């Protein structure tokens, strides 16, 4: 089993979860964010390597001491890591049990991928963009029904406490009121950990995402 990778980035301290982590970034993503941070994940030149879980383990295990001593491990990002759920499951089987796994996901994936992560992943970092379907579609080009369904499944399966929800303020696409509404909707779903931040876009370079 091999998966297309964009990069493996070591020693990400205080970025992708607790402790020292190594980011394994997959190629390929289901959404098309207008201010995409990793557009390489969509372009052919972004596909740097094709590796098996065993090969990835062989490469990242050099930091085993740091992972174990700090409660860190591996963060799967991308791109969309949950599209590679089989790869992550295999990696979890062969990695040292004391490592922690984090996934950084859009959640816009079929629910079977999410279900496969149960009991494997310690922390979910979910970038929901905005809960408003119109805003979401304008910003990502996709609808967010799958995201909402997956969030509900996570909440009903006791995963809300290990989930950090990103709530960005996206210039030209949503407002603080929109974000407040998203947060309230998520609170009602029993999510409690939020990360609010703002995309800074230079003057004159905003996209007109709002009607």
């Amino acid at each position, binding site marked *: 089993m091999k998966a297309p990778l964009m990069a493996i980035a070591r020693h990400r*301290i205080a*970025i992708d979860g*607790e*402790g020292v982590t190594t980011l394994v970034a997959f190629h390929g993503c289901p959404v098309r964010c*207008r*201010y995409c*941070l990793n557009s390489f994940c969509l372009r052919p030149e972004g596909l740097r390597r094709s590796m098996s879980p065993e090969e990835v383990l062989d490469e990242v295990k050099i930091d085993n001491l740091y992972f174990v001593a700090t409660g860190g491990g591996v963060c799967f990002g991308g791109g969309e890591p949950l599209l590679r759920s089989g790869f992550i499951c295999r990696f979890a089987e062969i990695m040292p049990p004391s490592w922690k796994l984090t996934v950084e996901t859009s959640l816009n994936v079929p629910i079977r991928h999410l279900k496969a992560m149960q009991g494997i992943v310690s922390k979910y970092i979910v970038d929901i963009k905005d809960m408003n379907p119109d805003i979401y579609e304008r910003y990502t080009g996709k609808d967010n029904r799958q995201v909402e369904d997956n969030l509900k499944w996570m909440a009903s399966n006791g995963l809300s406490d290990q989930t950090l929800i990103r709530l960005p303020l996206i210039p030209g696409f949503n407002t603080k009121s929109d974000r407040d509404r998203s947060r309230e909707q998520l609170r009602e779903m029993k999510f409690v950990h939020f990360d609010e931040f*703002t*995309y800074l876009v230079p003057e004159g370079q905003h996209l007109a995402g709002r009607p």
Partner: protein
Amino acid sequence: MTKGKSICRTLKGIRQKIADANGIHYAPRECHYEGECEGTCPACEQEVMFLERELQLRRKNGLAVKLAGIAAGVCAVVMPMESVAQNRPKAMRGKVSTVKRSIPATDLTKGKADSVLLKGIVTDGAGEPLIGAVIKSRGARNCATTDNHGMFAIKVSPNVRLEISCIGMETQTVEVKGIRNPESMTIVLKEDKALPGEIVAPVPVKKTVIVGSVILPEEQEQKTVSGKNGKLRKNKKKHK
């Protein structure tokens, strides 16, 4: 201090903790490399391998090895603070950054209603942000740590004394009552001269640039474009 040097210092602190916890004699060599590094280098990697060997030896001899979580608290959960969007249409050419403006406040009051919100930055004497600095009430166990821009946000009881510490720096204490600007604090830690220096990097480390949340080789970001005089030049994008 550069980000790479800051990572290097944190990793070195973790190695020191592992060595101390297991009775391993470990003295990092002083680093005189002045350029930007990735936070590790061949000399650092050799030290990791040395510790691995020492721990393996102890296991073989039936000795208990202390490793799990012994350096927890050196790092904490925060989000990527700054990244660069590349997939932007023509209308957006130029640098477009997403910068996190706020960080979630860590509640150190154990749910007490009477609390104050403190926000700020922890830096070294040169004004460089300190990543992973630990902030806690004196004598308490729970703590908060600074993110990768040295920023923190905490809720604490108004009657406590804060203790701010960071590997390689002297610990400082601050009385919460005496804080004048609770939401824009700047805490400067002095370098701890008692600690050994940084590791020697005999081989210059290949530079990388940060793209979004991953690091890509720098040469991938170089494009050849025509200069004003018609000559070809390298156009290197700057990334934070």
